[in-house]
């Protein structure tokens, strides 16, 4: 097994763990954490393919990861603000009890 395959397998496992957490957990913040894990798994794939691809001097994978990190930061900020707003409104952050957007 090559190093690239180890990296890709680790990233696939990270993605599966994040997906399982995002789908199964009840708490809204845990769902956001799962989404962050999935984004990180995708970033790991980018870096692995950049390092072991045919043209590492092009910096394409690096740039993709930098921009994707910025987008993930924006997503985390907006998502957590939504969780706080929903908590203020409904006094819960349990996703099973938040069934409608209308107040």
């Amino acid at each position, binding site marked *: 097994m*090559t*190093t*690239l*395959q*180890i*990296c*890709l*397998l*680790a990233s*696939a496992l*990270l*993605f*599966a*763990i*994040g*997906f*399982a*957490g995002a*789908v*199964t*957990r*009840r*708490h809204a*913040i*845990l769902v*956001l*954490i799962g989404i962050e*894990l999935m984004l990180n798994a995708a*970033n*790991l794939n980018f*870096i692995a393919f950049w*390092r072991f*691809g*045919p043209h*590492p*001097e092009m*910096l394409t994978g*690096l*740039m993709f*990861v*930098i*921009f994707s*990190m*910025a*987008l*993930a*930061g*924006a997503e*985390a*900020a*907006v998502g*957590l*603000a939504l*969780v*706080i707003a929903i*908590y*203020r*409104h409904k006094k819960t952050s*349990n996703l099973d009890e938040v069934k409608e957007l209308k*107040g």
Partner: protein
Amino acid sequence: MTLSIIITAIVTILAAATAMSLRNLVHSVLALAVAFAGIAAFYLQLDAQFVGFAEILVYVGAVAILIVFAILLTRSGEAPDQSVLGPGWFYGIIVSALVFTAIGWAILNSSALPTEVPVASDATVKHIGEALMTKYVLPLEIIGLVLTAAMIGAVLIALREVSTAGGSRRESAPSENLSGLTSTATNSSLGGKA
């Protein structure tokens, strides 16, 4: 190199699985920080130093702390009494296992993956900065705009609602403020006349 990458992968995946399975949210965020540090170690071993340190700065430094603040603000610091898994969790785990099986099978049997390891390029901060300022300057500007818009939007969403006597919501708050303003304005003008 391969052994250290395997150790990093095991630590990262164990930390991620712990973060996803603990009942107490604060503990789970601590495990998540360990997982992010493991991913940063991955990046450092794959010769991507800048991205590795950016990962530590952004994720361990900012996102984990932001999540801790959100947990404390929503008062969900202690473990809940009821089950932490939603309904239908069994199907979720089965689907994620299927996803991992499919991706893993594709990785292990693919003939398109490059087998020889190319020489590591010297992707120093200088090179990355030059590329960001020349070839990728438009995406950089756009990502700055997106971040600004997201920050303003997050602050607006999480703003404290103006609480009035009747417990009315945000819709009624501006009119309340407006009527208060006009009443004080009329009062002051009346006082000025008197």
